[in-house]
């Protein structure tokens, strides 16, 4: 026992190490009754230029707009037109149809990998719709909704997923690691949270140039534990950078529940408190809350009032990717018991409550979007599906390491081409 100034500590119990454990595992019956769901309209909406220390409660509450009967209420209601609401619903339905189709394509062996965003569609689509089209997005890997909401051609997404002849990334990147500068979409890395300081740098550059564009960035609650996350928040607060930080708290990082990123102690929005920046904790399954919070943060950033951290409280309804089976680590009925429902169903209900939508139109749109995805998939597959060395000339492997190819890469390229010739014969060409 250690000796202390207070004498031998022999009467203290031994130290014990806390290892977080989710409350429910496969076979358990989950009960989320203790999750606090504040009333819609109960959360005040401060002005966009409020001091962060005057709005700390928002880091611990939950901004909501839509109640569970589909009615929009309270100061955060963005009061979107029916046309805008229908556009939002359409984008969310499109990304879901896309996800289902591409997940199945992976299962059919047409590509190596896929990740769905089921249940989290609002966190990227409603968020992107609240931004200016020229604002720069630094996505993590589950933000395909950004591209959908900016009308990026579906076929280009599919070509990338298949690494086929139409893939402008020349088959270099794992599926879903898109890059679309013309659509304000930064190249997806695959390393976690590295995009966080990059978004801050982009925002600092925009501010230093007297531009009016802002940057937004996404990560999961799991990767908010990375050092890059904290580096980014430090730089953002130091330079008052015009950036919006989105933490998509979908409760799960592959098989690790949010407790391994600190959720047992506080909220993720509360990270903002320590950095002295604005923080908002919002219902991430409420598309109107996501839209309203993003618009608030964008207006704040654009008026030199600095960065905002938004925690999207949501739930990852499916596995992390095609590579894991969630029933191995959590109860299979958790997604349906999750108290915040489904973002598409909630927006649909809202539009119906407004008299601007109905079940028949919804079903017709679902079929239309599924057909669109299916037709596009056929076009994409004409350009090929994933296969070794089939779609890109072999020498493209050595291009773009540098702007100009140095001698050692030229030598290695020649060696590789000789290997391919030895294997396939002199007249072989990619399809």
């Amino acid at each position, binding site marked *: 026992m250690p000796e202390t100034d207070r004498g031998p500590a022999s009467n203290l119990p031994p130290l014990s190490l806390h290892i977080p454990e989710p409350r429910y595992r496969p076979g358990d019956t989950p009960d989320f009754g203790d999750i606090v769901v504040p009333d819609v309209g109960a959360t005040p909406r401060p002005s966009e230029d409020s001091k962060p220390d005057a709005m700390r409660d928002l880091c611990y509450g939950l901004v909501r707009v839509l109640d569970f009967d589909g009615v929009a209420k309270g100061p955060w209601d963005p009061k979107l037109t029916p046309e805008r609401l229908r556009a939002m619903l359409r984008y969310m339905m499109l990304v879901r149809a896309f996800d289902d189709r591409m997940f199945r394509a992976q299962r059919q062996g047409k590509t190596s990998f896929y990740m769905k965003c089921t249940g989290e569609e609002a966190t990227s689509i409603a968020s992107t719709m609240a931004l200016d089209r020229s604002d720069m997005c630094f996505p993590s890997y589950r933000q395909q909704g950004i591209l959908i909401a900016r009308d990026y051609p579906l076929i280009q997404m599919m070509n990338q997923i298949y690494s086929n002849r139409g893939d402008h990334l020349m088959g270099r990147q794992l599926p879903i690691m898109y890059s679309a500068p013309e659509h304000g979409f930064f190249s997806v890395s695959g390393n976690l949270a590295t995009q966080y300081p990059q978004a801050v*740098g982009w925002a600092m550059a925009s501010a230093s*140039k007297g531009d009016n564009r802002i940057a937004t960035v996404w990560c999961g609650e799991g990767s908010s534990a990375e050092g890059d996350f904290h580096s980014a928040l430090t730089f953002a607060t130091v330079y008052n950078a015009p950036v919006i930080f989105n933490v998509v708290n979908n409760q799960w990082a592959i098989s690790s529940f949010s407790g391994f990123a600190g959720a047992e102690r506080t909220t993720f929005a509360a990270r903002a408190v320590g950095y002295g920046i604005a923080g908002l904790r919002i219902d991430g399954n409420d598309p109107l809350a996501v839209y309203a919070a993003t618009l608030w943060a964008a207006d704040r950033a654009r008026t030199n009032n600095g960065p905002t951290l938004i925690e999207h409280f949501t739930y990852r309804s499916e596995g992390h990717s095609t590579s894991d089976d969630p029933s191995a680590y959590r109860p299979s009925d958790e997604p349906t018991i999750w108290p915040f429902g489904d973002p598409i169903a909630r927006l649909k209900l809202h539009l119906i409550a407004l008299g601007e939508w109905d079940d028949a139109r919804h079903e017709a749109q679902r079929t239309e979007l599924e057909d669109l995805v299916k037709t596009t998939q056929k076009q994409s597959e004409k350009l090929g599906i994933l296969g070794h060395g089939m779609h890109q000339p072999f020498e493209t492997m050595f291009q773009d390491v540098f702007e100009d190819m140095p001698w050692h890469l030229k030598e290695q390229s020649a060696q590789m081409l000789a290997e391919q010739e030895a294997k396939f014969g002199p007249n072989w060409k990619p399809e």
Partner: protein
Amino acid sequence: MMSAETQTATKTMNMIEAINSAMDVMLERDPDTVVMGEDVGYFGGVFRATAGLQKKHGKTRVFDTPINECGIIGVAVGMGAYGLRPVPEIQFADYIYPGLDQLVSEAARLRYRSANDFICPMTVRTPFGGGIFGGQTHSQSPESIMTHICGVKTVIPSNPYDAKGLLIAAIEDNDPVVFLEPKRIYNGPFSGYYDRPVEPWSKHDASAVPEGHYRIDLGKAATVREGEALTILAYGTMVHVTKTIVEEMGVDAEIIDLRTLLPLDIDAIEASVKKTGRCLVIHEATRTSGFGAELAALVQERCFYHLEAPVERVTGFDTPYPHSLEWAYFPGPVRIATALTKILKD
């Protein structure tokens, strides 16, 4: 050697002043160039490399950063994606490791992974090497970690004239460059004899530095001394140490200052070794998996039938850089003389 506008007005500069001048010229010429790092703003850097630049070019062009190397390099990647040309300083090369993921996985691969959608025209400046009683956290030579990254160029100047021309070329380069500055020779070339007075740069020809813009192309070595007896490959501080010992011993060595480690000037190396038939590689960094191993392998692959003796390496030892025993660690006159004697005997 000058590849851009011909310069007439020169000024006597030490390496710090030449590096400062390179940034000054680029800040003046290119409104997208920004200089950032710990203590680089008002104070002008712990080695004074950015002295006066903030006052002249303004706070949004030259500014201090948090003590956060991951943030410094990550933010610079984002600035590059916006269209700026960032020149971050890492205060000591020993501090670069917290930023290594942003360098290895992000900066170096951005062009490749995005097929030219995004590039990273960043130059990371950082002082490296020992000989200043810096102990194990202010003396390291991490160049072989940098050359092992695909997608990063690694540059090491050995005198004021080269430092300015290479730094301008690095800043103008559209790919990430790690610019390692041998801090032992910031103020004067080093003979290798720590107990002798330091000679200032003003007594050296390479201290005559043009005041304006000029480039020394990356990937080109310089022949410091022509000779027939053997080829010595060196860079940074070791160029001067090597020259001193060679002259003391009266060896007719050809000394090649690599200047850029990647892309390497293999033609210059090959031509020299084929001429002399012997090759000694010298660096201050630790021996195992050091850049000398790569050089020895390349020379062996390309010049084997011209070699009259095994390729020799003179390096630092595979220990952390010791504080009080740094001159026993440093590859100084005795180690170099021993290797020269050995390689010339066969």
